[in-house]
């Protein structure tokens, strides 16, 4: 199988922030060597674990974020370990790291030192970037959602409720997305110039521009947003759009199309459920009136709420969609395994996991595209699984030399 990153060697210094970026490089065909501490990447210890047994080789979050990578456990705090990393960087195409700014420079592994490999793309994904007054502040994923503005726009219409930062490490995802842009653009540029470069991506910068209309709304109108339950934040309070179904689920029920064909089908559906109310009044025959009533009034909105309350979620979703109405049903992630559509699109990749004695279906990735070939190509490595191979094969070390490093605790 080909892949857009085929032929590249990536050295990834293990961290929870950057591992998803490394995963997509690996999924795209790059050889990604994750250099981990002797005790394992912090990504191995967060859980959830298979059978909830803490074990660095059974962490499911690690499995997901490290598909197809190789693991070399090296203690870079020791000079001998540092030297190994330096040797690896001398041959690499990409170095992906997330240490606090200044850390690697102090170890003699900053960009200036590594740039003797003129090919090297040195990619630093950090909380606040390489400079600025908050450079040394500490953060985790949710802290970024707070500072970046995601939380200020997410939560509940009840003003007493807390803003919410959604689960799943999405600040890190946002930072990784931009880092991948940068790495890929630098690869294009390198084809012409033969030279790598340094890439500085701040997760805070990335999040700060990721709040849709909130920033332009402030810049141009001086207004800020109200949080609204399950829907867009808005400078004005709006009626609810996340509506309960008969079977205890929620529909996201935005109406954008008030044309006649859609309207007639919607009314027929409401008639079936006996919830049409006054919408048979002739004034609703006028599309402009419908649109304006929906925008400013409650009659159409209330009828839609009654319709959804009288229908099951799946019925609502498919029937609305068959009428070209873009309603969505709030699914649980795991419920997508039951959806035929994704199977038809060849979305699942079966990855063997010897430790639990079976294969697991993994999501393919965002793109259906054979030429890019971005999809999981194998399970995540066990801790130190490839240390021997990397030292012997990549660095040409003898078995004795490797044993000596093991004995002195430089590698595992």
């Amino acid at each position: 199988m080909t892949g857009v990153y085929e032929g590249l060697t990536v050295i990834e210094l293990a961290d929870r922030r950057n591992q998803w970026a490394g995963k997509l490089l690996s999924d795209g065909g790059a050889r990604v060597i994750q250099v981990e501490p002797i005790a394992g990447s912090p990504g191995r210890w967060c859980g959830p674990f298979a059978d909830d047994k803490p074990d660095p080789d059974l962490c499911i979050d690690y499995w997901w974020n490290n598909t197809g990578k190789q693991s070399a456990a090296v203690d870079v705090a020791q000079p001998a370990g540092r030297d190994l990393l330096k040797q690896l960087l001398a041959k690499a195409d990409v170095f992906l790291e997330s240490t606090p700014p200044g850390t690697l420079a102090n170890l003699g592994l900053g960009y200036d030192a590594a740039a003797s490999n003129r090919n090297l793309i040195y990619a630093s994904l950090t909380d606040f970037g390489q400079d600025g007054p908050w450079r040394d502040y500490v953060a985790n994923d949710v802290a970024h959602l707070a500072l970046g503005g995601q939380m200020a726009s997410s939560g509940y219409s009840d003003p007493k409720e807390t803003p919410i930062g959604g689960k799943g490490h999405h600040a890190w995802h946002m930072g990784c997305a931009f880092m991948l842009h940068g790495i890929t653009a630098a690869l294009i540029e390198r084809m012409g110039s033969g030279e790598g470069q340094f890439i500085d991506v701040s997760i805070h910068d990335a999040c700060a521009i990721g709040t849709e209309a909130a920033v332009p709304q402030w810049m141009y109108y001086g207004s800020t947003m109200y949080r609204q339950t399950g829907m867009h934040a808005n400078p004005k309070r709006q009626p609810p759009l996340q509506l309960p179904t008969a079977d205890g689920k929620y529909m996201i029920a935005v109406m954008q199309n008030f044309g006649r064909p859609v309207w007639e089908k919607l009314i027929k559906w409401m008639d079936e459920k006996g919830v049409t109310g006054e919408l048979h009044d002739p004034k609703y025959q006028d599309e402009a009136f419908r649109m304006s009533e929906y925008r400013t009034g409650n009659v159409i909105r209330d009828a839609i709420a009654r319709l959804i309350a009288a229908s099951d979620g799946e019925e609502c979703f498919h029937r609305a969609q068959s009428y070209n109405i873009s309603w969505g049903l709030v699914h649980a992630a795991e419920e997508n395994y039951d959806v035929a559509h994704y199977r038809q699109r060849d979305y699942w990749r079966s990855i063997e996991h010897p430790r639990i004695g079976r294969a697991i279906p993994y999501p393919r990735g965002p793109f259906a595209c054979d030429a890019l070939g971005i999809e999981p190509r194998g399970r995540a490595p066990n801790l130190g699984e490839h240390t021997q191979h990397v030292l012997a094969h990549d660095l040409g070390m003898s078995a004795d030399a490797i044993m000596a490093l093991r004995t002195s605790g430089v590698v595992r």
Partner: protein
Amino acid sequence: MNTTSTARPGVLSGVRVLDFTWKTVGPWSTRLLTHYGAEVIHVERAGGWDDHRYNATPSIVTDEPKVAQTLGMKKVYSDPQFNTHRDESAAATERPKLYAAPYFNTLHNGKLAISLNTKSPEGLKIVERLIGMCDALVENFSAEVLPSWGLTWERLHAINPRLVYMSTSGFGHTGDWKTYRSYGPTAAAQSGLSLASGLPGKPPAGWGFSYLDVMGGWIGGLSLIQGLLQAKKTGEGCYIDYSVTEGAMSMLGTYMLDYQVNGRRTRRPDFPPGNRAVFPALAPHNTYRCAGRDRNDQDWWIFIACETQEQFEALCSVMEQPGLVLDTKFATNEARVTNQAELDQIISNWTRPRRRYDIMRKCQAVGIIAAVVQNAEDRVEYDPQLQHREVFPVIENPEVGGAFSYERYPVRLSRTPATVQTRAPVLAEHNQYVFGELLQMSEAEINSLRERGVI
């Protein structure tokens, strides 16, 4: 209007993109390429315009916006809590007409704009000629639209074998749901993202910044850069069928695998856990109310987390409650997680009368994770880090009568910087350049097309 060369510096200088996207998610993906110097030609239907130029939301519609008041970026780092009135003196007295709504200006900066009637045979002929001159084609229509123009992938590939074609859609261009319609929140709901945000026992809180309209575009933009890399390596174009929902599911892999391995569902009573941490379980890890309210009368909040014992000990010191760390209920992380409701109340009592940025500074000074829940005003006006990194640059646009603030593209490349190139285009601003210079049409041809409503 602009008839001069539109060449711009950057890694993708010389790359030309034909952009049929509209709304939000598609335009984001092509905008990213402009920062690298690509020439992105945004096509709007003749006689109409992109929704975001005149967004129907009343708060957005106006051709007399307030002038951006961030000019000069001289605001000091102070808590606006006790200083809520804005410095109106900074506002220019003149109010220039804006050529596009703010969000359009944000989503389309750096692009060219043409108008074209793709429903006419002549219009389609022009589309085909442009495809022959472009490196990439992007659209976020429903699956049936481009084939209905005769532009199947086979046809596109035949016209231009090096073309990278990326379609952005809610559910992809194959499968039972290929005709289903979606916008960001639809995809967030279906993927499982919405359900991963909220308080236990309450309805989903969702993603009020429409995460997938934003991140969906960033991932789509990534696929375009990847496609261009692959085309440059192989000389062959490719078709990228990007489903925003599948992209979202690709960020939920941990939950899916947890279900496969442990049978644990995200649809369960104690999930989502609000702002608390489950994997790993940590306490404290939550939002806490601070003094004051924003201009919409919503309370101000700070997020505080301790991931290490040292951080918790430091927090007890900052709160001047050193005894807490000796209390068996809070002495270890495990104990704190068990008793986190009580711990959250103690921390909340401490933060409630205090100013949010003061708390953040004090905590960060001793290495505690503390983060103000910042809204757009906070970020644009008061965040010293974003000011230092010039995340909201101001660009002069004398030809449309104003200077506007933009969101920076947050990738800093040392040798080949990616930048905000210029403002968004006015409607059909580049018809002359594209039809006259690129396609070499005569003045008479162009006028004739215009009279017949083709452009």
